[in-house]
């Protein structure tokens, strides 16, 4: 600790804090303009100057002067006032006087500063410059005449987001914020808007809607990826006008501009019942009665297993918990699963094979009373835990990793917060990034090593990497207690390192370098996501990466872990609360009569097996849209006698349903999500429901009609019941991850050999990767009037310009894409990031439906023709 005085007040501060931070923590106001808590100080505006003793005779910037023992700081004096006033006057010389029409009015730092310093006139004149106002770009409007050249936007874009889309142009008095090209070509995350102290950057979605002081603010969780960012929803008159993250400022484009989905015109507002092939509106009572009646009839005929449940990663833990409870306790079947079966569940299964399921032992009995959304289990001394959750990395720790290996993931697209964590990790000088991906991605720019392998060859790449590691260090001993290393080594006998390299399409030397980096690492992080897990052998991919972590991972060191990106907000939560055919809440295995998983269920339907279900209850989970081989899914679902879909929109699966129950979405409901790094996020209700209902209420009503006795008044009660079944979440509270840091990890692992092959059959000339778009999450953000649509209004087939020339295709032209399973047409965009022979199509939009082409994987060989 450091003792100092600020304005005569004795204050204790932490070593390494700056004067400004200490003053702020102690409620002492020091004005500033270029400083922001989310950024490193650059001390360029000099408005935060303070008198420091002992020190130089001139005032020092408080934002970049560290506190020292015995320091005496004076924050207000006549001299300081004169300096600050003078500096702000210089800023104000040609500042546009359009506060009345400037969106920032009322929350403008320059306005506040001018007021606080009592500046009523500017005594200088200077050449008036013509501002280059940018009205042209999507979502973001730029007014250089309001800019104070603090550089906050440039720094957040460069250092935190990593997009480098804006920069200062010209110099001196003529300095102006610019982008080089118009319109702006960036990630459209809007973080620059949020961090701008003035109105130089304006949010076009929010523009002219309201003044800051008119807005009601609710803290909740962003629903547009598995990152679990908390943000503030700002509403007026029952409408969201904007969202903001006031801590780190960072939000991605879908987070910042995707919220209008709540107000989308095409949302379902009343239950629908299908009669003679078309839907008619119905009352809640009628719809629920019909569902209960049909379920009863079907169960009477074919037993409880005839009803199959699909949980939803957009629904809360409470709703999903109640969903599985409804199936298990009321319907008495384990026939339920979740759409993560085709990606995230595979990842967890791979990790589970190597590290075992998570459990926690030695806890005291649960406490009877705890605050809402807290675990009743206290982390007591001596409590131990084991299994995969202890190797699952936490985003907050990732910046402490010293080597990160990203495999098959376009990080920012899959999970924007993961990208920010990597940007933060880069601040550590020793940090080294290895990016392995068939195509170039954003993080290649920051990578020490880029391994561009052939699509689908990740397991051969991993084989080569293991081979290189074993060659570099034959007597390697994993930090984690591991079994089966010798047999595991044997599994790489088949090929030489050179053969692995050739087969994977990379350079032998690169594999050696990657192996060296990983072996040297004190806190290696392994990162992958849905794109890798969405392959038919996704689980094998995850096993290979889990094996790698078992070999080189150092789970005791912060930052070292396996980071798995989930596309949707509550993908992990589904697993934790037991929306699985073979596991109860808390990963507890079911030995007796496990249900069918989603893949088995569809197979049973296909073969017409006895155990095939006859009815489907889908809590969201648009199977037709998201599962590979769309025509098969459609055909099989049509075999069902009765389908109930609970969703906010008339999705492709909902179109096949007999009853549709409209649900409340994120800001209309209370509850919790588990982010993909296991952080508990608390959703708070900010808007009324307008006729729709939260999932848990619908499930409860249905359960009670079928003989259940669910008596919940609010989601917190459900959480309380759920948390009592989750010792693995001991010590959990909103904003915290599990397992709690106080638990002693007793990790052990088992090396599991993986299949070393390329699973990409067929002879067609191009490989299609069904991927993701940066601006979209699932299909929610594709509904008007989401701001994200202004940037990415539809799915385009991305291809290398050389391929386009060979196919005689130009940007914007329509191509026919043909696979063995179907054909679609899509408009083409050129992207040199894709290697020749590889094309990419995002799957968020209904048309073109990428999954018409796929069989069982997100990779497929295709033929492309000009239309």
């Amino acid at each position, binding site marked *: 600790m450091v003792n100092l005085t600020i304005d005569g007040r004795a204050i204790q501060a932490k070593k390494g804090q700056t004067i400004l931070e200490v003053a702020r923590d102690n409620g002492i106001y020091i004005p500033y303009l270029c400083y922001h808590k989310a950024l490193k100080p650059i001390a360029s505006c000099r408005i935060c100057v303070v008198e420091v003793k002992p020190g130089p005779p001139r005032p020092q910037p408080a934002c970049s002067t560290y506190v020292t023992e015995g320091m005496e700081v004076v924050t207000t004096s006549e001299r300081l006032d004169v300096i600050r006033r003078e500096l702000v006057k210089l800023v104000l010389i040609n500042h546009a006087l359009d506060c009345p029409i400037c969106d920032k009015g009322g929350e403008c730092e320059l306005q506040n500063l001018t007021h606080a310093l009592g500046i009523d006139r500017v005594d200088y004149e200077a050449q008036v410059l013509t501002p280059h106002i940018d009205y042209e770009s999507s979502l973001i409007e730029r007014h250089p005449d309001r800019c104070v050249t603090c550089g906050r936007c440039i720094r957040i874009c460069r250092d935190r987001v990593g997009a*480098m*889309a*804006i*920069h*200062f*142009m*010209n*110099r001196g008095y003529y300095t102006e914020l*610019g*982008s*080089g*090209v118009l319109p702006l*070509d960036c990630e459209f995350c809007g973080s620059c808007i949020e961090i701008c102290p003035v109105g130089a950057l304006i949010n076009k979605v929010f523009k002219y809607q309201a003044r800051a002081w008119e807005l009601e603010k609710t803290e909740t969780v962003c629903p547009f990826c598995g990152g679990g960012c908390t943000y503030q929803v700002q509403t007026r008159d029952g409408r969201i006008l904007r969202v903001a993250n006031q801590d780190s400022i960072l939000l991605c484009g879908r987070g910042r501009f995707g919220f209008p989905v709540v107000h989308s015109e095409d949302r379902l507002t009343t239950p629908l019942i299908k009669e003679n092939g078309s839907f008619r509106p119905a009352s809640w009572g009628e719809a629920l009665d019909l569902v209960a009646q049909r379920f009863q009839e079907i169960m009477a005929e074919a037993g409880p297993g005839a009803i199959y449940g699909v949980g939803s990663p957009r629904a809360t833990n409470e709703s999903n918990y109640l969903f599985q409870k409804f199936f298990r306790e009321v319907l008495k079947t384990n026939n339920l699963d979740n759409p993560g079966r085709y990606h995230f569940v595979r990842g967890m299964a791979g990790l589970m094979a190597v590290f075992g399921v998570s459990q926690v032992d030695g806890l005291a009995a649960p406490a009877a009373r705890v605050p809402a959304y807290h675990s009743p289990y206290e982390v007591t001394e001596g409590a131990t835990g084991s299994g995969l959750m202890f190797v699952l990395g936490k985003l907050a720790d990732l910046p402490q990793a010293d080597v990160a290996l990203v495999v098959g993931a376009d990080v920012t697209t899959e999970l924007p917060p993961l990208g920010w964590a990597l940007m933060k990790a880069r601040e550590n000088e020793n940090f080294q990034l290895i990016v392995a991906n068939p195509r170039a991605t954003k993080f290649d*720019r920051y990578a020490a090593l880029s391994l561009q392998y052939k699509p689908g060859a990740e397991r051969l790449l991993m084989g080569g990497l293991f081979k290189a590691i074993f060659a570099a260090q034959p007597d390697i001993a994993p930090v984690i207690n591991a079994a089966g290393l010798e047999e595991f080594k044997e599994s790489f006998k088949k090929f030489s390192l050179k053969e692995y390299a050739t087969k994977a399409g990379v350079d032998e030397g690169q594999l050696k370098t990657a192996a060296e980096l990983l072996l040297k690492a004190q806190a290696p992080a392994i990162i992958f996501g849905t794109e890798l897990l969405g392959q038919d052998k996704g689980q094998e991919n995850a096993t290979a990466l889990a094996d790698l972590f078992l070999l080189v991972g150092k789970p005791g060191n912060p930052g070292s872990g396996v980071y798995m990106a989930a596309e949707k907000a509550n993908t992990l939560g589904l697993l934790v609360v037991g929306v699985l055919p073979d596991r109860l809440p808390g990963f507890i295995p079911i030995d007796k009569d496990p249900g069918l998983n989603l893949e088995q269920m569809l197979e049973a339907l296909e073969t017409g097996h006895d155990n095939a279900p006859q009815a489907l209850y889908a809590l969201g989970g648009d199977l037709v849209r998201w599962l590979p081989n769309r025509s098969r899914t459609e055909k099989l679902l049509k075999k069902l006698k009765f389908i109930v879909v609970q969703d906010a929109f008339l999705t492709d699966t909902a179109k096949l349903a007999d009853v549709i129950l409209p649900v409340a979405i994120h800001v209309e409901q209370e509850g919790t999500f588990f982010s993909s790094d296991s952080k508990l996020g608390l959703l708070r209700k900010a808007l009324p429901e307008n006729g729709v209902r939260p999932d848990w209420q619908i499930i409860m009503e249905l359960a009670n009609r079928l003989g259940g006795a669910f008596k919940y008044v609010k989601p917190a009660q459900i959480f309380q019941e759920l948390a009592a079944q989750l010792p693995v979440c001991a010590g959990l509270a909103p904003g915290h991850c599990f397992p709690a840091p106080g638990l002693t990890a007793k990790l052990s692992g088992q090396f599991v050999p993986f299949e070393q092959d390329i699973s990409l059959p067929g002879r067609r000339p191009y490989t299609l990767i069904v991927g993701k778009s940066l601006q979209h999450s699932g299909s929610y953000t594709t509904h008007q009037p989401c701001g994200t649509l202004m940037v990415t209004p539809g799915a385009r087939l991305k291809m290398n310009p050389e391929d386009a020339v060979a196919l005689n295709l130009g940007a914007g032209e329509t191509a026919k894409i043909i696979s063995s399973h179907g054909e679609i047409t899509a408009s083409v965009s050129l992207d*040199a990031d894709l290697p020749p022979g590889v094309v990419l199509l995002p799957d968020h939009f209904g048309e073109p439906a990428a999954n018409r082409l796929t069989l069982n994987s997100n990779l497929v060989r295709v033929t492309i023709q000009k239309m």
Partner: protein
Amino acid sequence: MMDEARLSAILSRYDGEPYDLIPVLQDIQDQYNYLPKDELHEVAVRLKVPLTQVYSVATFYKMFSLIPKGKHQLKICLGTTCHLKGGQRLVASVCNRLGVEVGYTTKDRQFSVETVGCLGTCAQAPVMMVDDKYYARVTVDKVSKILKLYA
């Protein structure tokens, strides 16, 4: 259209790393008399420098120009000494004679006129540079003679 061979010839002299940005831009400026847009895009890709940074550098330094410059660059000094010795009058005279404003290029693309802060030869004020050549004690009556040398 971009002349790829011409640009590649310039880029081939360097390592293709971000630190080559300024020398590459200087070479382009020398050869093209300005920095064409397409070339800047290509330089950004080839040197792995964000396009915005390329533009930031290109607009920061006075030696670079995003609009085509004339065959000859006139730099008139307005440093303290030159200012006192009538630099401003020199600027007015040159501009009048060429029919162009400071910062612009004559219609025939022969001359671009700019003012600079100091040319480092204050003893010879007022000073003017045409391309790489210094002209000392340039009084207004010498202007036409100098310009004729380049016409």
